[in-house]
């Protein structure tokens, strides 16, 4: 059995996606924590295009980009599948996974900007959450149906990271009771044993996010 290595960085939700999927499938791997302010030669060699984590290395061969990694893990270790067998259902799961990627700039802007730019980001972010709840999740327990799937993993940051981001920024996006289905999804997602046991510590993450937020405010207002 070829060895599996994951280059990741705390508390990156992209890193955690791969951890979740490897653990859900019972794949043994070696975790390597990268310092993103001082990237290792290994990372630069394995991901010369983007120089980013996560990178999965299987039998010495690297794969970069978290969703590409997830599809690879799904195909290589088919147990506990994350994608349905039906091609149409697979296309729907991939659509929502891609939609999640489309939301990134808005949530980054929410976290990194101030003033008018942030107000715009707040408005856009709430609209995106509405689309995710009504059209992505709908009446389902998970994006994947009765069990978690690829899209749930992609949206996992909403369950483990969004509240902490809101606290660090001091602005609530998911106001109480405005997103009941998404709130229920968050609780159900966090209750899945592999997810529950593999979430960054809230207080540690809050301290980290507050520090990052100070830095962004500093550079936005200087």
């Amino acid at each position, binding site marked *: 059995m070829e060895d599996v290595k994951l280059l990741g960085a705390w508390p990156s939700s992209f890193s955690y996606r791969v951890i979740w999927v490897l653990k859900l499938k019972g794949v043994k791997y070696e975790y390597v924590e990268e310092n993103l302010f001082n990237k290792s030669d290994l990372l630069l060699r394995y991901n010369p*295009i983007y120089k980013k984590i996560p990178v999965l290395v*299987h039998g010495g*061969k690297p*794969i*970069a*980009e978290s*969703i*590409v*990694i997830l*599809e*690879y893990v799904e*195909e*290589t270790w088919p147990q506990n599948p994350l994608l349905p067998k039906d*091609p*149409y259902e*697979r*296309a729907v799961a*991939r*659509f929502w996974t*891609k*939609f999640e990627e489309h939301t990134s700039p808005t949530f980054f802007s929410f976290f990194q900007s101030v003033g008018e730019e942030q107000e715009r980001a707040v408005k856009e972010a709430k609209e995106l959450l509405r*689309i995710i709840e009504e*059209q992505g999740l709908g009446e389902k327990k998970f994006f994947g149906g009765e069990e978690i799937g690829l899209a749930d993993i992609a949206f996992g940051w909403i369950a483990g990271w969004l509240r902490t981001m809101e606290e660090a920024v001091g602005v609530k996006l998911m106001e109480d009771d405005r997103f009941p289905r998404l709130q229920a999804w968050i609780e159900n997602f966090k209750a899945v044993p592999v997810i529950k046991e593999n979430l960054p510590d809230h207080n540690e993450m809050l301290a980290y996010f507050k520090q990052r937020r100070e830095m962004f405010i500093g550079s936005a207002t200087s």
Partner: protein
Amino acid sequence: MADEIILLDFWPSMFGMRVRLALAEKGLKYEYREEDLWNKSPLLLEMNPVHKKIPVLIHNGKPICESLIIVQYIDEVWCDKSPLLPSDPYQRAQARFWADYIDKKSALSFWKESLEKPYFGGEKIGFVDVALVTFSCWFYAYETFGNFSIEAECPKLIAWTKRCMERRACRLLWKIHTRSMALSWG
């Protein structure tokens, strides 16, 4: 029961052309419906309510959106001929990575370095070729209207474009497309 395939598209779209190419590679019959992007049809708004964009493939009444997702869908459903993705998971990951890269950025300088084999897919046309070849129509436009020679700058890329054009599907679509572009740009 025969498959009903409808493609909602817009003729200059590079993304729509990816789907047309995949359908042609698989030899599939479909109904092409041209969308007026300044006056989108109720069908488009119903089939892609999230983005309201083309291309949208409607297969037996069910919509699939996002060009690369559509191409993968076509490859999975009609898996008996002309595979677009390789069978090896690592090679599939590489193909997905590069196709995603094309979507993120299309730097010409990168592409001229990375072509090792006859096609990005290896010995045969594959997922990455389908993702990128539609942009080669723009190479022709740059040359004709932009007054610079891509052949001089990126000979490997031009050789690859010519190789793709040896495929009937590519050639037919390219001809229609560049003629339409020339007509509209006058």
